[in-house]
């Protein structure tokens, strides 16, 4: 009985407190980023202004007036949206084939796909830069979209595969018996049934694309540069301007935090789906 009582007490008070502590620890960097973005560059590094300072919007005004924030933001939206759409366009038929018509090699193919995520990106940096430049695709939206799509494709296929495996095979077979061709099976049966899973996958893929920095910084200069490039561009030889940098970073992570906030239920469901299963 004593054990049960202890567990109940922990469940009632301990668990929520622990959850809040963990949440605050994770939230603190975002809070500090936004907090610092309202300081001047000078205040940002002064210990006496660590907590008390005169808030200013200069960093944000400066960012939109001098750094062309909206162009970078537009590029981020374009590349992330198209990369996600293309990743789904390739991933859905691929995951469908592996979930409903598996061969002996399916598991190996899935592992191979995941193994490409284990490859250090730096190992292919120079070939990639060289190739994109030589075929004239360096700093183009097309190149960024293709790269973002390809690096996220393994995760997209894995997630979709897990969702599709949840759908009873008989339902797909019933579709075949009802006179549906392969495209019809995907359009009429698979997509409506796995809609929640596809939405979670798309959301996660979009977030990954938006946050991607390694390739978008290195394969762009101005034309297709995304918000990651804008943040990276705020480094100056004289040092880091923390106020400005915080404002740019806050403006870069802001949209994705808001999106994540509104879609958190869908996202959590999507991420824990396989684990619960």
């Amino acid at each position: 009985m004593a054990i049960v009582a202890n567990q109940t007490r922990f469940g009632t008070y301990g668990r929520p407190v622990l959850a809040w502590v963990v949440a605050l620890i994770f939230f603190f960097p975002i809070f500090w980023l936004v907090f610092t973005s309202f300081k001047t560059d000078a205040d940002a590094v002064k210990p006496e202004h660590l907590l008390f300072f005169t808030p200013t919007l200069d960093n944000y005004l400066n960012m939109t007036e001098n750094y062309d924030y909206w162009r970078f933001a537009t590029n981020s939206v374009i590349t992330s949206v198209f990369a996600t759409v293309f990743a789904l366009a390739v991933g859905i038929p691929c995951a469908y084939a592996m979930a409903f018509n598996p061969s002996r090699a399916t598991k190996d193919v899935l592992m191979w796909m995941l193994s490409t995520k284990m490859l250090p990106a730096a190992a292919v940096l120079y070939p990639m830069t060289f190739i994109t430049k030589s075929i004239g695709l360096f700093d183009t939206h097309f190149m960024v979209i293709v790269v973002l799509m390809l690096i996220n494709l393994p995760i997209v296929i894995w997630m979709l595969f897990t969702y599709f495996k949840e759908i009873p095979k008989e339902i797909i077979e019933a579709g075949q018996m009802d006179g549906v061709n392969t495209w019809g099976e995907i359009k009429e049966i698979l997509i409506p049934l796995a809609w929640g899973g596809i939405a979670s996958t798309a959301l996660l893929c979009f977030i990954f694309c938006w946050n991607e920095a390694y390739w978008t910084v290195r394969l762009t200069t101005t034309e297709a540069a995304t918000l990651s490039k804008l943040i990276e561009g705020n480094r100056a030889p004289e040092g880091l301007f923390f106020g400005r940098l915080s404002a740019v970073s806050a403006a870069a992570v802001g949209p994705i935090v808001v999106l994540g906030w509104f879609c958190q239920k869908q996202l959590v469901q999507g991420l824990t789906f396989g684990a619960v299963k």
Partner: protein
Amino acid sequence: MGQIVLDKVTKSFGETQVIPPLDLKIEDGEFAVFVGPSGCGKSTLLRLIAGLEDTTSGKVLIDDEDVTQVSPSKRGLSMVFQTYALYPHMTVRKNIAFPMRMAGMSEQEQEAKIKAAAESLNLTDYLDRKPGQLSGGQRQRVAIGRAIVRDPSAFLFDEPLSNLDAALRVGMRLEITEMHKRMQTTMIYVTHDQVEAMTMADKIVVLQAGVIEQVGSPLDLYHRPQNKFVAGFIGSPKMNLIEGVEAEKQGAHTIGIRPEHVEISTTEGLWQGTVGVAEHLGSDTFVHIHGVPGCDPMTVRAAGEFSVSHGDTVYLTPNLALLHKFDDKGLRIE
């Protein structure tokens, strides 16, 4: 039309051959039942006909046309699955309309067929519900409705009643049989329940380990089982198979006698035994008897109420004219 022919069809999964070369002909309008124990290959055989599994070799012919390489959607067959396999995101109306929509049928024609199917299957009040809001029996009716509206050349049923409770199963069994009598369309029905096979079929195909043990009408199989397997599988309760001295007296390795063909008495008879369990059903009494040489326990069916209980001594007399004789290979001796 809906004549289905399997010509030397085989199926292997990797190295394992689950269907050795098999020939079978199902006539147009026939109600054929594939029956056998779990894992005997009956569902695989049905899926080969449907096209949901590829044959390893051999041909599948529907109305003399080789459809071995034709996709399931083009074979003109309808299938009802054990798990119903309804589209959970669609209403009953949309589920039934789905195959017609895929075939490009006009809206008016679809609506007329939905109405007719819903009326014949008592689904009219449920057309706007989703499958999740229906009972098991109603779901199975929707699955049948979806199969009917295609006007298929043959219906394939894969253990469609297994997920229903006993009472509902009997009702649905009658409905499907009646539907066959009305439509006169070829039906192939897979079940492991020999009672379903006996009550529904024009032709029963008994399978074991992918091999056809016997094909025939229900009463053919009941009266003239070709081997011990069929003898033991068809009939409820099972046929008593007796080996040893009693069989040798009849010039056979094994003799079989059905429970209803043995007379039971508390005073006299050919064999003597002790009652193990007596199942009193009212209309019949099934008595399981120990101590009969070569067959333990022996089951006997007595008409009406037969008052015995555990430990009582009883006497049994088989109707020798209705004995089945089998040789050492288990094959029937005429």
